[in-house]
């Protein structure tokens, strides 16, 4: 639990990221251009926002499979609120964020009040929320948003993509909460030994509900950025994004059994995956080859980390 023990996996990962960047940079001239790097940052924001909160979820020993569906549902409702109901776009965005948070809150209630395993609860809502999104959209997409809305997903501030600022901000806030506050401590304690946490007077259920609600909020925020980036809403948005987010979190050293993990690790995992995707495609590797490589990197990193950890106390 001390910083040095925690950072070991992150160190391995950081070295891996550097190696990947050097190798990929040597494969293509385009890789190390500012434009390309910033564009990659733009592309990884949606997964990144979800992965940051997913880190909290997985540290408590849970999982949230429904985030992709919440993203789809929030995106559709953003379009419906604005276009069909004629609400101001600002209000539509706010309401879409509320719906996402509510969807996460519902997950939290199912998990804490009805004692569903998180995997089952969110597998259920994965289908439920996606089905709602498809039912509401009736396969129609919404387009033609006002220009100011595209700043979020396509614009820049101070030379950096707008949403990248947001990602960095959320990552820093999340790292501070997880690393230095009583909420973060409760998150780790619940993941390591939920019974002992409860017996210590920590508000276990409350913390879990808050985390799943935050997960829903992050998915809705990702939805708004997604819509802004691609200029349209469709009901299949975000399909499978939960797996990308979970991959980044696990690659970042968070234990799927709970109690262990950091935001720094998740961000490194995210960067490594994005660098591999982009670098390999620039180097002319086909996308199926890229997926194979990402899978292999995931398994090997965890393996190496486990071998090193085995000498430790756990």
């Amino acid at each position, binding site marked *: *639990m*001390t910083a040095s023990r925690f950072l070991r996996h992150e160190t391995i990962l950081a070295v891996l990221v550097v190696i990947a960047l050097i190798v990929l940079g040597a494969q293509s001239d385009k890789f190390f251009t500012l434009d390309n790097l910033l564009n990659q940052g733009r592309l990884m924001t949606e997964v990144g926002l979800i992965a940051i909160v997913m880190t909290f979820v997985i540290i408590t020993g849970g999982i949230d499979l429904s985030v992709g569906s919440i993203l789809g549902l929030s995106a559709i409702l953003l379009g419906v609120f604005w276009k069909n109901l004629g609400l101001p776009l600002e209000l539509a965005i706010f309401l879409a964020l509320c719906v996402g948070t509510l969807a996460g809150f519902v997950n939290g209630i199912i998990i804490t009040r009805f004692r569903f395993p998180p995997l089952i609860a969110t597998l259920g809502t994965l289908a439920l929320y996606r089905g709602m999104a498809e039912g509401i959209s009736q396969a129609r997409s919404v387009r033609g948003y006002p220009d100011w809305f595209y700043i979020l997903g396509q614009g820049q501030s101070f030379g950096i993509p707008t949403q990248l600022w947001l990602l960095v901000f959320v990552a820093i806030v999340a790292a501070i909460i997880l690393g*230095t*506050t*009583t*909420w973060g*401590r409760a998150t*780790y*304690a619940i993941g*390591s*030994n939920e*019974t*002992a*946490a*409860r*017996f*210590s*007077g*920590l*508000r276990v259920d409350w913390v879990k509900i808050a985390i799943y609600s935050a997960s829903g909020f992050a998915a809705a925020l990702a939805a708004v950025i997604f819509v802004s980036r691609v200029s349209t809403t469709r009901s299949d948005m975000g399909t499978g994004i939960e797996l990308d987010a979970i991959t980044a979190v696990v690659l970042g050293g968070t234990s799927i059994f709970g*109690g*262990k993990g950091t935001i720094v690790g998740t961000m490194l995992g995210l960067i490594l995956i994005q660098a591999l995707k982009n670098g390999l495609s620039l180097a002319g590797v086909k996308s199926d080859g890229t997926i194979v490589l990402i899978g292999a990197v995931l398994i090997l990193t965890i393996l190496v980390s486990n071998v090193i950890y085995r000498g430790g*106390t*756990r």
Partner: protein
Amino acid sequence: MTSAVPVSLHSISKSFAGIPVLRNIDFDVRSGEVHALLGENGAGKSTLIKIIAGVHAPDSGTIRLGETTYTAVSPKEARRGGVATVYQELLLFPELTVAENVFLGNAPPNKAGMLDWTAMRRGARQLLDSLDSPDLDVDAKVGTLSVANRQRVEIAKALSQDAKVLIMDEPTAALADADIRRLIAVVKRLRDRGVGIIYVSHKLPEIFELADRVTVLRDGALIGTRPIGEVTEQTLVSMMVGREIDHLFPRGEPNIGEVLLRVDHLGFGARVRDISFELHKGEILGLAGLVGSGRTELALTIFGITPATSGTITLDGQPVTISSPKQARNLGIAYVPEDRGLQGLVRPMTIAQNNSMASLHNVARGIFINVATELKRGADSITKLGIRARGPDQVVGQLSGGNQQKVVLGKWLETAPRILIMDEPTRGIDVGAKAEIHALMSRLAGDGMAILMISSELPEILGMSDRVLVMHGGRLMATIDRADATPETVGAAMTQASAHEVAA
């Protein structure tokens, strides 16, 4: 039946992690007898029966099964030697039928080498009939059966393997009165058929009804093996409890103040029923009772884990509602739980982090934890409680049992409680740490803290308590003052209740 003594053990010793749990034990079972095995929790009964069943290998000594002598048996050798065990946690497969469970692992094959279902069902039927259970359907899934019926299936399974010795580990602990009667009849029937039975139980009346001989273990040592006719309940209790109590527990002259906690007709479902008592400042109130008597359940209800369904709790004369551990803590109630690994500690975390777990407000400014303050308080607790550790940043999982217990205690003292509930405060820890924890409890009570101590160890109850409550079946059976509390009176209050139960 082939041999008059199917199992005999000679000078068996066993240690776990350097702590001796059995020392030079001689033990045997004859065909056609019930041999009761008695002892307090932690006396070594479970380890002994697991050595016979082949689960544990002894460090020294020999095991003789029939005509063969072993230094250690494997589970398979034990089974072939005719030893079968009915464990407390019944090891059946809930999704399989009664017949399948009975013959699992030794099913009769037919000519084609496939399972012979007809023979299995017929065999299971015969076995169950011989156990006086013609009402039990061999095609029922085991998961749908009551505990008593599952136990019969387990016994039938043992018999299907032609057991010469049947080990029964607290078989009546989870049974209702009528089922206990039936089980006792079954055990007698098996005995008459020549099976040797090792019967582990806390319930003295059962032992007097069934046993031919009784062996008492205490702290891993053999205290004696006697024919049942030579002992009384009193002699058995003092054999189990034994040692000179006053030497071990230096409880000074208590300084008892006004009533702090009052509980009136408190209940939680069927497990805690109509409990009323008062707890004074500076008092150590012992809570005795057999395993499953509702002691821990009472503590969990007061602490808000399982909030009361009836009755009232009064603190300082003010009625209070406690529906969560957080509320209990804020009212100044602390609970050092029974299972420190599961309920007490977050083992991958450090001493300092565990120390602050119930009192994060002490080490945080707003929501931000001040790590320096936390480490300092952790170090203070280490000094105050004499925890043997490298420092406050050592991981708790690396500490010994006694030191882990001190960390749990330290965690709760950080909340500055006025009422401290301690559930089996010295279970599974060595004698030195035990004495330190007892001394600490005396000191805390001397400073005016009210302590409710749950213990299965009679010497601890008698040595530490200013008054003793005795529970049975979720009810309060007796309140005994320190002057009147002896192994005989407390033991009688615990067993009187169970005599009543067996007679019912």
